[in-house]
C-alpha cells in the first residue's frame, strides 16, 4: 500500500490540490486502485453552500486523472519509455456521471490502461462510493518532457 506521503511525491500536483489519499492495489502493466476520503475539512468544502451539497464533478474528474498518473508511476514503472520527469498532458476527457460523492464519503478510484505508447495513452477510470458507481471517464493523455514545455520542478 502506498500512503499519502508517497502519493504526494509521485504526483506533480501540490497540496491542497491532491485528490488521492492512498494506493491500495497495483496490477503491473494494467491497473491501479486508490482511495480518497472527502471530508468537511477539505478546502473546497468551504465553498459548498449547504450541508448535503455534492462534491463537484470537476474535482472527481481531477481525482480520476491523478489516479491515472499514479497508474503510470506505479504500474508501469520501468516498463514504459517514460522518464520520472515526464509530464502527462490531458488531451481529452469523456466523462459519464451516474452518481454523486459527498463530504464524509470514501471514494474508490480505479484506473486501467486501454492503450499505451511512448507518446500518449488512453486510460479508462472509474469512481465509486458507498452508494455505488459515481462516474466513468476515458482520458486521452499526451506524454511530454518537462524540458519541451519549458517548465521546471520546484522539488
Amino acid at each position, binding site marked *: 500500500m502506498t500512503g499519502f506521503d508517497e502519493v504526494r511525491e509521485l504526483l506533480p500536483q501540490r497540496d491542497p490540490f491532491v485528490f488521492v489519499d492512498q494506493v491500495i492495489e497495483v496490477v503491473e502493466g494494467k491497473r491501479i486502485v486508490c482511495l480518497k476520503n472527502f471530508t468537511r475539512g477539505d478546502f473546497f468544502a468551504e465553498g459548498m453552500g449547504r450541508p448535503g451539497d455534492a462534491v463537484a464533478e470537476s474535482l472527481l474528474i481531477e481525482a480520476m486523472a491523478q489516479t491515472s498518473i499514479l497508474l503510470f508511476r506505479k504500474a508501469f514503472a520501468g516498463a514504459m519509455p517514460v522518464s520520472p520527469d515526464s509530464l502527462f498532458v490531458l488531451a481529452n476527457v469523456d466523462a459519464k456521471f451516474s452518481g454523486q460523492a459527498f463530504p464524509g464519503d470514501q471514494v474508490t478510484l480505479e484506473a486501467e490502461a486501454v*492503450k499505451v*505508447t*511512448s507518446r*500518449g495513452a*488512453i486510460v479508462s477510470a472509474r469512481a465509486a462510493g458507498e452508494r455505488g458507481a459515481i462516474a466513468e471517464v476515458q482520458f*486521452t493523455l499526451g506524454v511530454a518532457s518537462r524540458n519541451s514545455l519549458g517548465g521546471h520542478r520546484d522539488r
Partner: protein
Amino acid sequence: MYSTEIERTVTQVVAEVSEKKEEEIWEKRDQNLFKDLGLDSLLALEIVAMLENKYNISVPEERIIEIATLNDAIHLVEDMLAAKDKAAV
C-alpha cells in the same frame, strides 16, 4: 459506397473521433488525416484504441505511425486480422 465491413467500420470510427461526417471522411480516404483532416497523434491513438476494441487486435506502436490516410488505417486492420487468422490456424 463501401465494399467491405472493415471499410465501413474504420470510416465510422474515424468520423466519430474526428467529429466529422462519415461521407467526408470516406470521400477523402486518400488524403492525409493529419494535414488535410486536422487529426493529431492523440486522436490517432483514440482511433487505434477503438479499432483494437472492435476487432480484438493489438496494434504495435511501430505500426501506428504507418497510418497517414483512412486507406492506411483500413489496410492496417485488414493486415492485423489476416495475421490473427493465420496465427489461429
